[in-house]
């Protein structure tokens, strides 16, 4: 089999994903993770051994993979839609846990968004210090974002946005660094924004300022 001898990383990934797609056809789902198990993984509520077991299956089942992604997407997007930061009403920034979904001048409902043309950037409280890259730096890929640790914070949520405020990459992590995947489309010469929110155990969510970066030409 000459093709086998010529396999490289891309072929390996394509072959694996194609196998998952073929396997999904007519798949008996009795061995699949239950929807509740997938939800427990997304919400970080499954104990580690369970998490590993469920994700081992997700990595070998295209149907469970898709369902996990739908749940992850819902969780990430709802948090974004309901997010109180970056509004033009100071009272909202302080109203932890309570959101005003409409009626205000929220970032996402505003054409131009953060730092839109001629618009002053509306910043978070700056409670979380951003470390690297520095404000308005020109950076190269691979891109790693670093911020300072916040005591008592088990998780952080990072957002990378384009100039218009549209999210390009969202992630939740226990680290204080984030490597932006190469699959995230960042164009040389263009400006992007990023910020971090701490998800503290007590329910408060202090945020960093919004920082600009540019991809070096």
């Amino acid at each position: 089999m000459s093709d086998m001898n010529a396999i490289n990383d891309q072929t390996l990934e394509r072959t694996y994903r194609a196998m998952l797609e073929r396997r999904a056809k007519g798949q008996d789902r009795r061995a699949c993770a239950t929807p509740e198990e997938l939800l427990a993984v997304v919400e970080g509520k499954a104990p580690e051994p369970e998490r590993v077991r469920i994700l081992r299956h997700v990595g070998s089942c295209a149907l469970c993979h898709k369902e996990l992604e739908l749940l992850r997407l819902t969780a990430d997007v709802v948090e974004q839609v309901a997010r109180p930061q970056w509004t033009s009403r100071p009272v909202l920034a302080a109203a932890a846990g309570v959101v005003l979904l409409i009626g205000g001048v929220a970032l996402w409902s505003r054409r131009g968004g953060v730092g839109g043309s001629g618009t002053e950037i509306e910043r978070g409280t700056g409670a979380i210090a951003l470390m690297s890259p520095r404000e308005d730096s020109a950076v190269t890929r691979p891109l790693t974002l670093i911020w300072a640790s916040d005591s008592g914070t088990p998780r952080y949520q990072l957002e990378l946005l384009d100039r218009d405020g549209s999210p390009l990459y969202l992630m939740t992590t226990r680290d204080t660094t984030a490597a932006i995947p190469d699959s995230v489309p960042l164009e040389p010469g263009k400006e992007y924004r990023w910020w971090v929110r701490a998800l503290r155990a007590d329910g408060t969510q202090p945020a960093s300022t919004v920082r600009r970066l540019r991809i070096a030409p």
Partner: protein
Amino acid sequence: MSLRDSLSTALDSVMIRFTRLVRSVGRRRGLDDADLDEMEQEVRLRLWKALATSDRVREAKTSYLYQTAMSATLDMIRRRRARPQEDLETMEAADSPDLPVGAAPDVEFEQSELAARIDHAIDELPEPRDVVVRLHLSGYHRTEIAELLGWTEPKVRNLLYRGLEDLRASLIERGIGPRRVA
């Protein structure tokens, strides 16, 4: 404006933002439009039922919105599982990334055989490297794998590096010679 219209406007404002984010993030995560459409409709309907007035929409707490939306998506998944044929049709309609339409049977057999050998080689990887490798090959970036597993990114990077090295060696033993796996 009637109460119903007012509620509709309030929900629309929420859903415009919700839809915009769902589309941009969902497509990047490889979800197709049919999935995203169904999820949006399910969430919209659930919010409509749960938040009977526009004031409630405006004042809804994050946690309540979260629970409502997650419950809607969870129900959608349950309903789909009760109709397995639908998923089958969706999968059949999707493009096969490595096999052209009407691929010759011998090519298809060779690809299936290759996939089976890769799958078997991953099964033999030590735990938990196998999990990280499977998630990587199924399309997750290591930062996402770290998030899902609740591990640090350096730990995942290390497991992935070693797991792919093991996989390379195992595939070579099976007569499959990857030039570069990661």
